[in-house]
């Protein structure tokens, strides 16, 4: 039996984290959770995950910052990152726009909430 791949899920809403955890665990992965960017980096330092699902809007350290830090560190640069956002490019007044997404170094992004099959497909695709 091959070892389960580890996914780190970082989002500041505990209910959202719990819901996504249930979905990913049902997809056959191990899930670690963190509730802001700084905590996420700490978790990566302790145990390197195979993939990171990262929310953009978070207190303390937001997703863009955390993503930039991970990509800047050669140790973690290769870990694929899927950015999650509730705003995507749909609200123009928001600070987070489509352009931000495109300029980010993350491998992919999905708007919140995430449809389970789509999320698992994306995860699978980046873990190949």
């Amino acid at each position, binding site marked *: 039996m091959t070892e389960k791949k580890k996914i780190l899920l970082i989002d500041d809403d505990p209910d959202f984290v*719990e*819901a*996504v955890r249930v*979905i990913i665990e*049902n997809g056959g992965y191990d899930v670690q959770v963190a509730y802001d960017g700084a905590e996420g980096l700490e978790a990566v330092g302790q145990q390197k995950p195979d993939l990171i699902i990262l929310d953009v809007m978070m207190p303390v350290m937001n997703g863009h910052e955390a993503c930039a830090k991970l990509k800047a560190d050669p140790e973690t640069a290769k870990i694929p990152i899927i950015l999650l956002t509730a*705003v995507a490019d749909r609200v123009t007044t928001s600070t987070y726009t489509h352009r931000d997404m495109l300029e980010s170094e993350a491998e992919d992004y999905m708007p919140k*909430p995430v449809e389970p099959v789509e999320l698992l497909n994306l995860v699978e695709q980046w873990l190949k």
Partner: protein
Amino acid sequence: MGDIRILIVDDEKVIREGVERALAGLGYSVAKADSGERGLEMIRAEAYDIVLLDLMMPGIDGFTVLNWIKENQPLIEVIVITGFATVSKAVTAMKQGAFDFVGKPFTPDYIRIVVAKAVAKLRLQAETEQLREERTLSLEAINKEQSRLKTVFGCMVEAVIITDKEGVVVHHNPAAISILEIQTDPVVGKSLASSIRDTAAVEMILEAIDKAGVVTREFPPGSISRRYLRAHCSPVKAHGGAVLGSVTVFEDISTHKEIDRMKSDFVAMVAHELKSPLASIEQMIYALQVGCKYEALHSCNSLHNRMIVRTRDLLQLIENLLNLSKLESGTVVFHLEPIKGHEILADIVEIVTPQAEGKGLNLLFRPCQEDWWFNVDYDHIRSAFLNIVSNAVKYTPEGGTIEISTSLSGGLASLVVKDSGIGIGKEDLQHIFDRFFRVKGKATRHITGSGLGLSLVKKVVEAHKGYIDVQSDLGAGTTFTLRFPVTEMLAPA
């Protein structure tokens, strides 16, 4: 001019009656005096237009009466009657201001002609006087109109610039200097370009003159001045249609723009606050769809419960938002009545006790000795107090203490809610009453709320002429102090 009033002053009855007969039926009102004394008396007592005056009378003679009339009532026309018919006496009388003279004996026709001439002169004089009055009035009106316009122009909040057709300023009001931040002195007589550095404004005026039509434009801060300006430039045309110049009104719309921006920010903020919990709820529905096939029942129940909590929070948020909006627009009607302060607090303590006990909190209620009343809307104040006390329960970890105490001093009742909770950092404390502000961090992660509760509390407290104050130390606890004026109600026996 009404009826002509005539007074006949003659010592001879025959003459008086003769003259009266001659003037009868002509629409004059005629009075008679038989002496100079009597004549003066009557003139003093009543108004006359024409006096037919005998020069030679015993006692006060005609000359004396004539002099008195010309000195005191110069508008009365005097026709002298003289039995001696000497030209010299008549001439003297005329020199002294008499209108004409009649020599005795006279024919009734002659009397009528002389009187008619005097009447014609009087009417002419009256008409002239009326015309002069009218002219004076209209001149006054013009003066008033001009000064009124000048006052309006000077008092206008908007900047007004008037130019000729070359764009040279011919007139401006005081507001123009301040709104357009003009440093040039004088402005009049120079091209507008030499007083305003922004070329777009000058172009706008030339365009209005050129097109002979109104041009409206907005100038963002930094172009003409530090304010956001909206300008309406309209050409001034002669009767023939030729453009003579322009009138431009600059309006300061900085405040409108700021309100607009705040409104969009607010809408964006509300949208975000509604979307975030909805996204989480939808995510939990997805999780239940896939999860409950495998997951332990416990996790499913927990997700169900959280969905209920989040949905309720969302409804509460909308409710709070509506209340806040009502409070801000001033449409809330407060039903003020004297309420016993300690009664409302005891009620709140009772409501939160189960929650506090569930968390193992020590909830203390320490009212002061004296009872006090305050004039408030029961429902609004109750929910404001409940909000503060519930917050204390929410943000105080297990085993902590919450103390609610009151005191009276200087006509104010103070209500203090002190907790041994997680506290609020200095940075966050200054935003604690801001709409949608919530302290974010590890300690508050699992505590939900709309971020509108304290905004609402502050509004309600202030609407009741009260004050709210907060002190906090991170990790040590938070103290909210509310003060209200007490009403002069003596404790019922």
